[in-house]
């Protein structure tokens, strides 16, 4: 099995698939669930185990999923709400250094936003949303044109 690899151009989308470069789970999803079935196909004996492992993907939100999310949320809270986490200077520094690799513009702003967020800033309304939805982005681009 080949794991999907990052696009060569330093892109933000993982690429895979096409001619045997997909992961097993992707392959199974394609060729076991989809495609033509013709009534002349004969029954053949199948290896069960390899196929069974994939049935994990069918599991819909279960108690285990809920517990996993709860744990992740509580973990987040430990350093997200300033309880014994890094102090502000450390955080800002880390962000500046981390950001230096990418685009320089906006890093400072991002750091300021971040600091405001951590302080539980009172400018609730002025704060940038945590993330921009694709449609919002598309609209913004239209306006720029």
């Amino acid at each position, binding site marked *: *099995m080949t794991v*999907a690899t990052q696009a060569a*151009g330093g*892109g*933000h*989308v*993982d*690429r*895979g*698939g*096409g*001619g*045997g470069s*997909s992961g*097993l789970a*992707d*392959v*199974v999803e*394609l*060729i*076991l669930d*989809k*495609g*033509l*079935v*013709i009534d*002349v*196909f*004969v029954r*053949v*004996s*199948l*290896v*069960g185990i*390899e196929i069974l492992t994939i049935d994990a*993907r*069918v*599991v819909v*939100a279960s*108690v285990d*999923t*809920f*517990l*996993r*999310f*709860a*744990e*992740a*949320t*509580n973990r*987040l*809270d430990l350093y*997200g709400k300033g309880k014994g986490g890094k102090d502000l200077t450390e955080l800002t520094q880390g962000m500046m250094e981390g950001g230096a690799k990418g685009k320089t513009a906006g890093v400072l702003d991002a750091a300021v936003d971040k600091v405001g967020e951590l302080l539980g800033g009172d400018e609730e309304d002025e704060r940038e949303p*945590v*993330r*921009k*939805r*694709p*449609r919002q982005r*598309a609209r913004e681009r239209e306006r720029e044109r």
Partner: protein
Amino acid sequence: MTATYVYGLVAAGTTLPDDLVGLGPSGRVSLVEHDGVAAIVGDVPDRPLGTRDDLTAHEAVVDTVAAATTVLPMRFPAVVEDSQVVDELLAPHQDRFLRALEQLDGMVQYSLKGRYVEEVLLKEIVEEEPAVAELQERIRGVSEDASYYDRVKLGEIVAKAMEERRDVDANDILDRISPFAEQASPTTPPQPDEVVDIAFLVRRDGVEQFESEVEELGADTHEWLRLRLLGPLAPYDFVPAEE
């Protein structure tokens, strides 16, 4: 009886790539043509099918051919008796196969999958859902056993909040990328933090633009969304249903 493995169907006259390796003991892959349609066939191993290598070989054959020409992919495992490839498979369904090949001519499939960056999304949910903070308060310092039901409840609220956001985000992504595809077939992924699983049917001459639109979407959303693009693939999701 000897059996034949059928990977998929192409238009007659197609030339197969040299480097195809089938799942049979010989590894050979060839074409059986009949009246405008050709089956991509190979031999069948004398053992149960379904190993990792079998699955990978099936997909590799289909999608390597699909990179250059339109393939109607068969569902795994597709085994017919030797004598029946023409008489039972190609001849009786010739009409239907030809129509489907024509319909999908010049098209490939891409599958776009997306998953939330958990930390970013959870932060948003904690901020926006007061019930989460309340439950966190109750759980804090309580033993795992004693807080079990509260933790399940917390996770349930988080999962529900995720699903609400997912519905919005999945629609946004579909709206944004669909104009660059001929057809889109979205499915709701099983886990709440999986945002999209969409199959797109894309014209070969539009592949570059499609890929760059997806790349741009990835650039715009990478802070909170991990996108994965598979393809070009055979049109697995767009094979016409049996009439």
